[in-house]
């Protein structure tokens, strides 16, 4: 079943600002990264998918439902974690998530139980009776995630889930999202500007640029190995470069790395032999992979 499908989706505001232009994508279940969209494109797409905004032209389908017709049905099966501040500071996490559970149609007891469980799954069990106003950024992000899970959605829309988190917090949030996508059986769309984290936890990617589709692909297809070997020694890089050059390997330098074309398996041996002969400390040797960042590296600056 396709998770999300759009067909020539276009949205213009007041005839001047084009947020989305002729977007046609088909997203399979799993963890999907939505990148590159500037503010207008991303939030517009989310609102259209949730049935809060009608497209100017084109169509969209979420979980095989049409949000312009069955908005309530779509929203019942989708959980949304907004980017911005959206918590009531004077309620406790448990009360807040319970209330929103009821707003999703859960009967009172079920809402309370699921709220408690959702908070446990996001790692907020002990603190759930404290007021949200006293929470750290990391805890607040988790509450937002818990309220998106409380009604057991089939699809989660996470908007910049690691926003404002320090490295440890980011790690924890990414691990949590990975668990949700792989163990809980819920598909996740992660909107992020950080290509590193998208590469890390997503199965596929949709890249939007200036409202148009830039690329829609699996992460594995975008991070295939190249036929270039990267070699790094912590000392004597120049020495090694010279030696490899002598051996007839065309060497290119990239900061601390030496890049050598991988002609055949023997290349590995020749490099290893050179390093051993020169008694250099070998820090790294592996085939370079393509990176998602390459998608954005070559174009001009955005003016949107």
């Amino acid at each position, binding site marked *: 079943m396709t998770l999300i499908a759009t067909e020539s989706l276009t949205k213009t505001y007041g005839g001047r600002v084009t947020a989305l232009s002729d977007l046609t994508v088909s997203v399979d279940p799993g963890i999907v990264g939505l990148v590159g969209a500037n503010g207008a494109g991303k939030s517009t797409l989310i609102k259209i998918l949730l049935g809060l905004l009608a497209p100017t032209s084109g169509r969209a389908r979420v979980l095989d439902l049409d949000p312009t017709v069955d908005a309530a049905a779509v929203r019942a099966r989708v959980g949304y974690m907004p980017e911005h501040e959206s918590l009531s500071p004077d309620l406790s996490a448990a009360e807040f998530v319970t209330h929103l559970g009821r707003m999703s149609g859960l009967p009172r007891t079920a809402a309370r139980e699921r709220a408690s469980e959702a908070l446990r799954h996001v790692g907020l069990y002990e603190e759930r009776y404290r007021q949200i106003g006293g929470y750290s950024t990391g805890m607040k992000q988790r509450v937002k995630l818990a309220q998106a899970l409380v009604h057991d959605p089939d699809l989660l829309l996470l908007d910049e889930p690691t926003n404002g988190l320090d*490295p440890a917090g980011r790690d924890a949030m990414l691990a949590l999202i990975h668990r949700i996508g792989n163990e809980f059986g819920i598909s996740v769309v992660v909107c992020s500007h*950080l290509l590193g984290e998208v590469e890390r936890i997503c199965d596929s990617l949709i890249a939007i640029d200036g409202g148009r589709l830039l690329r829609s692909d699996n992460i594995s297809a975008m991070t295939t190995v190249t036929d270039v070997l990267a070699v790094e020694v912590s000392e004597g890089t120049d020495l090694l470069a010279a030696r490899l050059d002598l051996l007839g390997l065309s060497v290119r330098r990239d900061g601390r790395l030496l890049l050598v074309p991988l002609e055949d398996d023997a290349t590995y*041996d020749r490099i290893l*032999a050179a390093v051993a002969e020169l008694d250099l400390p*070998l820090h790294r040797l592996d*085939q370079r992979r393509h990176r998602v*960042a390459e998608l954005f590296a070559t174009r001009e600056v*955005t003016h*949107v």
Partner: protein
Amino acid sequence: MSDVTLAGVSRWYGNVVAVNDVSMTLGPGVTGLLGPNGAGKTTVLHMMAGFLAPSRGTVTIDGAPTWRNPSVYKGLGLVSEREAVHDFLTAREFLLVSARLHRLPDPEAAARRALELVEMTDAQDRRIGTYSKGMRQRTRVAGALVHDPQVLLLDEPFNGMDPRQRLHMMELLHRLGAAGRTILFSSHILEEVEQVSGTVQVIVAGRLAASGDYRAIRRLMSNRPHVFAIHSTDDRRLAVALMGQASVTGVEIDRAGLTVRAGDYGSFTRALPKIALAQGIRVRRLLPSDESLESVFSYLVEA
């Protein structure tokens, strides 16, 4: 070339110690200021920018104190996290105003230069209110650069930027640093800090946990064995051979390959190629697992 120096700096608010006896010197080039949330990074930045006085110690730029010393702003540019820009001005107007406030001899030229540096020349005559978050950010950076300062302080400068804008900003900072300016920027996105510059100052719980090149910092952590992932044509035989090395403290083998823990980085990295060659084993992959800035940072925070 300018130096920013903190000497024995502490800052407290009543009983709360935000910064605890921090001494550091920033020289030309780009330095990343890292730390968990609430560790005191913003306090340090504000003291460097002259917005806060240290409770103890001195904060100086080229020897001149930053507190209550407006002349220091001639050579200092600051992009703080929260400051707003007037929506009704265009980028060009905003920069002109900044240039005039700095009493620059040729405000038009300065504004133009700053716009070119951040690549906002095409959009310069649109109102800031119509800009995306990334463009606003670039405008603010331009505002901090208009008077061509030697020192630039940035608090989370990439916030809200999309991937392309991030790449451009990283390049910009790199260029400015390579040109000899002293730049300090705080960020939580360690992969990006790694790419812009390997030099870091890490603040944990108000104290300076580490300074310098993160790779060198890693080497100093002698109590943490270096972890490498290896993939070869005969992992098991290689594992046995490696276990015979004094520098190797542990070897694990699974379907993905070998995981080796080496207590002595220098010995191990020199020994591995030789051992593999001697055994007739081809090494196809050697990857350090905990050498990245992320790993170094997490070790520093744990400690």
